[in-house]
Every structure is written in structure tokens, then in C-alpha cells.
């Protein structure tokens, strides 16, 4: 198994200029590990991170978009996989941290924990590039090629919690992080 914060540290090493949409626990860890103005924390409603990611991928096709999703969130918006497959944005990488629980809401198990095959669902939805990792070494080796390939790409990461990170709901829902993101996006658009 992969520690989620180790995984996020690895993503941070390979991150260059991508738009990042992290959700819940991944949001708190990304915020602590990789401060980056083109991070959109305001997913608003559970499950909606992947759909925001698709919107950014359509709106800014010259920039790669990384969604850092959770398994519970993915299950709440499974149809998004079909929508993403049909829209086929080459610049979207959808990472899912599969820990089998609703970690930010009391760590209750998700339906189908340990049984549901998220990568299989993504393949069946029509996502062309689907990967699954449960070992850090394999992920580290594959990651550069995986993010360089044309998407849409789906990456299921079997994780366990890592260190403790403060729950920064003020960052997720507060206006300041949206304002920071908006300014960063305006710079991206101005550079076109």
C-alpha cells in the first residue's frame, strides 16, 4: 500500500504548471505539501471534483489538469467517468486515492470497500488510459510517462492514510482561495 501523503509528495515533485483540483483529505494534504495558486479547492459538493476538472480541461486545453479525487467522491459521481470518456480531453489526469473509507466524515467504509474495482469501472466507462498502483516504487517509475501521455487518464491509487494534516475547510470553501485561483487563471488566459 501507498501512504497518501507520500504519493502527494511524489506528485508534487513531478508537478510543473498543471491546474490541480484536490478533494477532501487530498486537498488538505496538497495544501500543506504544495502551495500552488492554480489549485481549485472549491469543489462545493461531494463528487464534483472530476466534473470541475473536466470543465477546466475544456476551458484551458493548453494546460494539463490533475484531479486528486477520493473513492467515496468518485462513487458519488460515477457518471462523470462516462462524460469524461465522451468529452475525451487529452489534458485531464484523474487520480483517485482509494482508501476504502469516507475519511473526512468519520472514516466509515465506502460501499463495496475492498471489492469494487474502480479501474475496471473506468475502463468500462470508456476511459482510454487506466492505471492502478498499490506500490510506491511502481508508481514512481510509471508516473512521468503516465502524465506525459495524451489523456484522458485515470489512475487508481490504493492508499492508506499518512501523517496528520489540519482540516482546512476555510481553504476549501473560503473566498480567498477562489480569488487566488481566479487571479492565477487570469494570468494563464492573458498569456494566450
Amino acid at each position, binding site marked *: 500500500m501507498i501512504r497518501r501523503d507520500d504519493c502527494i509528495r511524489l506528485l508534487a515533485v513531478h508537478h510543473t504548471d498543471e491546474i490541480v483540483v484536490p478533494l477532501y483529505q487530498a486537498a488538505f494534504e496538497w495544501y500543506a505539501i504544495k502551495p500552488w495558486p492554480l489549485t*481549485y479547492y*472549491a*469543489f*462545493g*459538493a461531494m*463528487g*464534483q471534483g472530476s*466534473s*470541475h*476538472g*473536466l*470543465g*477546466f480541461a*475544456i*476551458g*484551458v486545453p493548453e494546460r494539463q489538469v490533475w484531479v486528486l479525487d477520493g473513492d467515496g467522491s468518485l462513487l458519488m*459521481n460515477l*457518471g*462523470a467517468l*462516462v*462524460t469524461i470518456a*465522451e*468529452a475525451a480531453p487529452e489534458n485531464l489526469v484523474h487520480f483517485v486515492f482509494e482508501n476504502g473509507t469516507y475519511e473526512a466524515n468519520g472514516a466509515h467504509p465506502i460501499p463495496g470497500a475492498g471489492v469494487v474495482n474502480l479501474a475496471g469501472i473506468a475502463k468500462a466507462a470508456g476511459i482510454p488510459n487506466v492505471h492502478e498502483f498499490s506500490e510506491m516504487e511502481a508508481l514512481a517509475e510509471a508516473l512521468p510517462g503516465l502524465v506525459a501521455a495524451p489523456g484522458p487518464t485515470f489512475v487508481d491509487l490504493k492508499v492508506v492514510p499518512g501523517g496528520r494534516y489540519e482540516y482546512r475547510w476555510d481553504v476549501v*470553501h473560503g*473566498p480567498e482561495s*477562489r480569488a487566488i*485561483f*481566479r487571479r492565477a*487563471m487570469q494570468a494563464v*488566459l492573458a498569456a494566450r
Partner: protein
Amino acid sequence: MNDTLNGPRILSTLKASGIEVVVSVPDVVTSEGLLRPISTDPDLRHVRVCKEDEGVSICAALSYCGTRALLMMQQTGMYDSMNAIRAIAAGYGLPVCMLIGLQGAVADEDPRRSEKHIVRCALPALDAVEVEHRLLRRAGDVPAIVPAIDGAYRRSRPVALFVGAMLPGP
């Protein structure tokens, strides 16, 4: 002069409003008169979604990208997406523009007084989450689309356009 609401006039007005992307789940009111031509219109990118709340998020994200977008759905989809509309569009104050077929409505009737529960709850539901809306029932209502969409983007607020009369096909 024929004052019947029709799809071609709505479509040309949406384009005049700067809409470039249409995100949709089909709805029976706008299906033939509006969504069908949109789906083949080379000037618009059409994104089909499985569920309406996906569309709220896609339109919200596009609002940061300098791209005007419209979510088309039936009021049943709106009811199903209320948390996304409340949180993402209204709560965060984002210009999510929605065109909502009011299935079951009758053009000459005030939908708030409809005997149909599915119709009379629609406008109050958006009132409850503080989303402004307009009702399109006749051709004369169509010019209100441009200021509604311009206003949504200028003030960074969501807006909904209810289509209260079945749009005839071509």
C-alpha cells in the same frame, strides 16, 4: 405577429449572449426545438453529461476560463441538483447559467399557480437557494436572455431561464 416561443430565436439569442459551450441532459420541453439544433451547431461545443450536477460544475469551472457556458436540463434535473446549485453556483457566487425546461407547464398559466406539484415548486425552489430566474413563455420574452446572461457574468451570480412552453421542432 406570431408570439409563440421558438427554438431558433432562443438559439440565436444565446449565441448573441456569447455562449460557446452547452452542457446538457435532454429535456422534453426543449428537445426538438433547441437541443437538437444545438447538438449539430458548429459554433457551439456540446457536452453531454450523465447527471445535471456535473453540468453545474463544468459551467462553474468554465466561468474561470473566459468561456461562457449554458446548462440545459429539465426541472426534474434541477431538483436533483439542488445541492450543487446551492453550493457551487449560489454559495460561491459563480455565473452558472441554466436553461430549464418546465415540463408540464402551460404557456398561459403562472407556473407558481399550477395544479402540478412538479411545476409550481420549480421557481420557489430556486428562490430558496437565492438564484435569480426569468420565465420564457412567449417570443417577446426572448430578448431578456441577453441581459440575464450578461448580468450573471458581470455580477458573478447564477441565473436560470425557465422555458415554460413546449418548443416546436423544425
